[in-house]
C-alpha cells in the first residue's frame, strides 16, 4: 500500500465524474456508521455487468443533485462476503439504502423489500425514491411504500428456503 493513499481524499482529489468505491468491510462499516442525516446508497454489483453499468450511469448523473440528501457508493459484491451473506444478495445489481445506520426497507411490489434489484427506469425514479426515503427516515419510518410505478420496477422471482 503506497504512502500516498492517505493523500487520495475520497471526496476531492478523485475525478469528480466517478462514483466512489468501497473496497472492504471496514470501509463499508465506517461509511454506514458515520454518514449523518443523509440517505446512504450502497450499490452491490459488478462493474462489468450491463445492468450494473446502466444503474451506475443513473447514479452518477444524479449524484450531484442529490448531494444534500444522499451519498452514493459503489461496491463489488464479490469483495465483501460478510455483507453479501447478511443481506442475502443473490441478484445483482442490488442497491441498499441506509439512514443513520438504520437499514431502510421499501415495498416495491417485488418479493424482496430489503433492497432494490436492477437498474432504474429513469433518473426521476431514483430521485423520487431517495426523497421518499429521506422524508420517511426524518420522520422515523424505516419502511415506506414505493413512489415508483409498478411498470418501472424490474421484476424477478425468488425461491426461499427456511434457514
Amino acid at each position, binding site marked *: *500500500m*503506497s*504512502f500516498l*493513499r*492517505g*493523500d487520495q*481524499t*475520497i471526496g476531492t482529489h478523485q475525478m469528480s465524474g466517478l462514483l466512489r468505491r468501497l473496497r*472492504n*468491510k*471496514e*470501509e*463499508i*462499516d*465506517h461509511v*454506514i*456508521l*458515520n454518514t*449523518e*442525516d443523509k440517505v446512504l446508497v450502497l450499490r452491490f454489483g*459488478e462493474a462489468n455487468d*450491463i*445492468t450494473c453499468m446502466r444503474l451506475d450511469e443513473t447514479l452518477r448523473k444524479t449524484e450531484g443533485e442529490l448531494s444534500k440528501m444522499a451519498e452514493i457508493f459503489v461496491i463489488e*459484491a464479490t469483495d465483501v462476503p460478510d455483507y*453479501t*451473506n*447478511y*443481506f*442475502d*444478495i*443473490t*441478484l*445483482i445489481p442490488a442497491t441498499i439504502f441506509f439512514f*443513520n*445506520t*438504520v*437499514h431502510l426497507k421499501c*415495498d416495491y*411490489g*417485488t*418479493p*424482496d*423489500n*430489503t433492497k432494490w*434489484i*436492477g437498474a432504474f427506469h429513469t433518473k426521476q425514479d431514483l430521485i423520487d425514491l431517495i426523497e421518499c426515503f429521506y422524508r420517511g*427516515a*426524518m*420522520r*422515523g419510518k424505516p419502511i415506506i411504500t414505493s413512489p415508483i410505478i409498478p411498470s418501472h420496477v*424490474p*421484476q*424477478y*422471482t*425468488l*425461491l*426461499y*428456503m*427456511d*434457514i
Partner: protein
Amino acid sequence: MSEKKQAQWRFCRSCKRNLEQRGNEHNYTKKHKDNLIQKMNQIFTDVKGQKYFLNHITLSATNGETSSVALSNASALKPTSEDTSWYCFICDVTVHNEKTNAVGFEAIKHLASKSHHKQVDSFWYEAGVGIVHNQLKLNKQKFYIKEDRFQQFIIEIKKKRKEEEEKKEEEKDVPPIDEKIIAAALAPPPEDIQEIQKPAKAYETVYNASGIAQNGTGFNEEGNRVWGGGIVKVKRDMWLSWPIDELEDELDKRKVELGIVVGKASETPSSSGFRTVHATGENLKSLGARVLAPGEGNVHSGAVPPWLKSKSDLQRATNSGKMFAIAHNGRRGRALKPQKLGAELVRGENGVAASKNFLPKFGGVWQLNGSRGDNRRDFLENRAVQVTEKKEEKEEEEKNFPAPMMSNVSERSLRINLQSIIKLSKYLLSLRFVTLITSMADRNKRSYKERFRDIVDFQLPLEFINRCRSIKGVSPASHSAILAIEQDTESASCIWDASLVMSSWFCQQDEEILRQWKNSRCLEIGSGCGLSGIVMSATCAEMIATDLGEVMPILHRNVDKSGSILKELLGADGVNIKSQELFWGNDCSALSPPFDIIIGSDIVYEIQAFDLLVKTLRDLSGPDTIIYISLEHRWKDVERFFFAEIDQHFVYDLTSTR
C-alpha cells in the same frame, strides 16, 4: 267507360299515388320505397307459407279430415282453417283451397300459373322493385313457382296416394291379436321386474358457426354433463392428462418435499428466517445462493448486522479501515455530532453502537402525544441526562485503567512482531524512508501523564545480536539483553511509536545490509530517548545521537546505560556511541560531516521546523549519504509540505510497514 275510368285512375299499390300523373318518377320517392319494402316482405312470407306445402306434402284425408300435423305446421306460418282461401296480393285474386288431394293445392297451382307469373313481372316493373332490390334481398323467383316444380309436385302427390292405399290393404291382412297376450299385457307386472328406465330425451348437440357445442338437455351424447360453450364435466377416471400436467404435478410434489416456497412479499414465511435458494430475473445476473455458516443469520432472520458487530482481532490488525476513516473524514478527523434534532443517533466511541439493542431515535421532538413545547422540553431534558451519563461513564473508565502497559505506544505497535516486518521488507527496494502508521484514536485514549510513566523495556532479539556479532567477528551469543530506556515527563521526551518501529525494523535487516552499515559513521537527529540510535549503534562503526539541549540529560543517561549493555554483548570495540547537542539550523561542522547514514524517527511533525530540518540534513550529508526517516501519519498537510521540500534536494523512496 268504366274501364277507361278505371284506366285513368290507377293508383300505386304501395304509396297510393295516382300513377297517371306522375309516371315512374314516384318510384324513387322515399315513401314509396319504404312502403314497397314492407309490402314485399309481407307478400314473401305469405307466399312462403303456401310454398311450404310444396316440400311437405300432406295428403288431405279421403274422408275430408286433414291431418292435425299439417294444420299445426301451417298455423305456425299463417293461421288457416279447413276451408281456407288465400288472397294473392300481386294478382289481386283470391284462391279457394278446397278439399283436394293435398293441402294448399290450389294456392300452389295459382302460384305456378302463367298469369301469376306475368303479374309478378309487371308488378316488378311498375312498382320499381328493382330500385329497392338491394334492400329487399329477395329474388323474383321466390314469388312464383316454376312449372317443372309444379309437375313434380303432382307426381309426388300421386305416389303418396298409392302408398297410402297399399298400406291400408296390408293392414287388412294382419291377423287378430292373441287373447293370451292381451291378458298378460293387461295384468299387473310382477314385483321382481324393475321398471325400464326410459332414456332421457336425446337432443343432438348443435355446433354453431364458431364451433361451440350446445345441447338443450344439458347432457352430452356420451352422458356427460355439459355447459354452454362446450365445457364438459368429466370424471377423474376419464380425464386424459397432457404431459405438461404430469410435469407440473411432479414439480409441486418436489417443492413440497424440499420445503421450498415461491417468494411473495405479502406472504410472510416463517419468522425464524429464510434464505434465497434460487433467483432469476430479466437482465439480472445471479450470484448463486448464499452459503451461511451454521449459526449465522441474515437480514430476514433478524441477525445482528455486520456494521454493529464488534471488531475481531483480525480486523483490527488491518489498517485500511482507519486510513479510510481519516481520509474520508478530512485531515483532522472531524468529531461527529451525536445529538441532533430530527434524526438523533446515540453513538459510542469509534462510531460503534453504545449498546446491543441499539436503535437510533428518529424525530425526537415530534412525538404524537402532547404539545410541541412539552415534547421539546422532554427531549432537551433527556439529552442533558444522556450527556451527564456519558461523563460518568468516562470517569469510571479512567479509574479502571488497565495495569502497566507500554503507555505511549498504541496497541497495534505492541503487536508489531518481527515476522510481519520481515515479510514486508521483501517489498522494500532502495530504502530511504520507513513509514509507520498508527491511529490517532488509540493515542488519544491515554492521558498525557500516563504516557511518561515507566521505564520502557526493549527486547533486543537474539538473531539480531548474533548477526551483529558474526559481522564483527565474534561468536554467536546464547542469550540477548533487554534495553531499559527511561522516559522523562519534564522535557516531554518519550518513546514515540516511530522509534519503536524503526528499531524493530533495524533488527530485521539481513546480514548483507548490516555489512553495508558496518563501517559507516552514523548520526541520529531528534533522538529523544535515544532508542533507535542505540539499536543502530549495534551495527555501525560510529554513532552520534543528537537532540535539543533540554533532552540531553536523559539522552546521556540512556546512552551510557544501554551502551554498556551493548558493549557486554558485542565487545567493547564493536560499539561506539556518543550523545551530543544539536539545534537544527545551527552550524554543525563540529560533528564533522559528511555522515554515511543519518537516522531520524518522528521528526516530521511541525511545518515551521522543515526549513531548518532540511538545512541540517543537507549540511550533514554528502552525495553518498543514506537517510532513514520513520514518520507517523498525523496530518496530511504536514506530510505534503515535507515531501515538497525534500523533493528539491533529495531523492527519496517510500515504503511502509503495512
